[in-house]
């Protein structure tokens, strides 16, 4: 059964899952879950919140998969659920104000700014300071974007989705998504102009 599921393509997995095949559903989850988790983590900047969004999003998909009629791509349908949850979380929990660059890891607290890639790995202290400052400014700037600007920016810059697809996910036009991205990049440019 599991081996049969491995050979299935996405539409077959969706149909099997719609008939109550949990293995097929989990195969379907695995096609998308890394990107879902990455999106949630980058939008909310908290592994715990990203974990919660992952659970809630896929449970909603599981419970409502029978309503999926293949009239849009499954990816779009899934991302609509995920981004709505992330936007709600950003609005309700006021993550923008609680933003912290320090995350808990299994090896203790880790400042994400320390993990930023060096522009030149020559160990030049001035250069390292500059890179660190840029990283800090980026985090501050991301925290200042509106939830919607942030969603568009994350999906375009980090997930590589086209603006047309982003518009479809957010239930808006490509033009509106483009304006949103434009505002986000303008803010980033204004905040980071002196650092790059």
């Amino acid at each position: 059964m599991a081996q049969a599921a491995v050979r299935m393509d996405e539409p077959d997995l969706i149909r099997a899952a719609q008939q109550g095949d949990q293995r097929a559903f989990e195969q379907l989850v695995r096609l998308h879950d890394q990107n879902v988790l990455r999106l949630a983590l980058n939008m909310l900047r908290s592994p715990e919140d990203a974990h919660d969004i992952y659970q809630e999003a896929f449970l909603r998909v599981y419970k409502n998969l029978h309503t999926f009629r293949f009239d849009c791509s499954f990816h779009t349908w899934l991302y609509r659920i995920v981004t709505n949850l992330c936007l709600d979380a950003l609005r309700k929990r006021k993550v923008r104000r609680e933003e912290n660059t320090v995350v808990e890891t299994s090896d203790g607290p880790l400042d994400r700014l320390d993990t930023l890639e060096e522009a030149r790995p020559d160990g030049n202290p001035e250069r390292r300071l500059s890179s660190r400052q840029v990283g800090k400014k980026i985090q501050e700037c991301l925290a200042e974007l509106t939830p919607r600007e942030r969603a568009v920016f994350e999906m375009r810059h980090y997930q590589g989705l086209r603006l047309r697809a982003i518009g479809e996910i957010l239930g808006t036009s490509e033009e509106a998504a483009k304006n949103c991205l434009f505002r986000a990049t303008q803010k980033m440019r204004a905040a980071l102009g002196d650092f790059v």
Partner: protein
Amino acid sequence: MKCDEAKKTMPLFLYGELSFEEEERLETHIDECADCRAALARDKALFKSMDAAETAPSQELLEQCRADLHLRLAHAQPEHAGFWNKLRDGFTVRFHFAGFAQPLGAVAMLILGFAAARMTPGSLLGPWQTAGVAEPATSQVRYVESGAPGQVRIVVDETRQRVLSGRVDDQAIQRLLLTAAKDSSDPGLRVESVDLLKNRSQSAEVRQALLYALQHDSNAGVRLKALDGLKDFADDPETRKTLTQVLLKDDNPGVRTQVIDLLIPHRSNAMVGALQELMMKEDNDYIRMRCQKALHEMNASVETY
């Protein structure tokens, strides 16, 4: 194109979101304008810096999310699925074009239900009627064969479920949990069983089951639970031997990390050798760092000669 417009469209240009004509106009302008060339170079540098700010989820977080989802799915139900879904869809399609037909569909379903109840043999319904909350029964049609005209022979598998309650340290309960911990078809069942057993690792039989799960279970969530149960036996020679083997062969970074945590406090030559061997083939930066740190703390060489 003016400089203002050029600068406005640069981010969209870098994202590849401009039309062919818009790109042409921008490139023509940039060729002629040194200021805008410099601005584009700055935007490129900005994008590169932003690339570096992305946070990638750890494999451990991903595995945890998957294991938790698996458990939650076991208790979740789709809003409706399977037979009833199909039946409803069938009626939906059939009466879709006639507004008046929906009440008719409802009446048809009532008649269908009434007829089915009247015509189904009592022997098939028997277990369903007698099964209480504590003893639900399930039936599955295994085989259907047509016989004489108008006749059919159906073979039905019936499974009667029993609910057993008791203390985890009860021998009978523990035996069932040990069996469930090896159930190859359901990782969720194994995770829950191993989770219950892990606090009973003072029993040699349970410990053996945990060691078996750690070595052979295909699900990382189960292996992590088994490791949790073995933490009080990290200085036991048999456990250490298994941990060392797992460290070198397990494909899950979360499991390998936790094994290192258990091994490090009890130094042995075999463990130092295993860490050195791991350093030669490990591709996970975090684990390499942990390994290197542990070897340094033990004044052992990071490499083998």
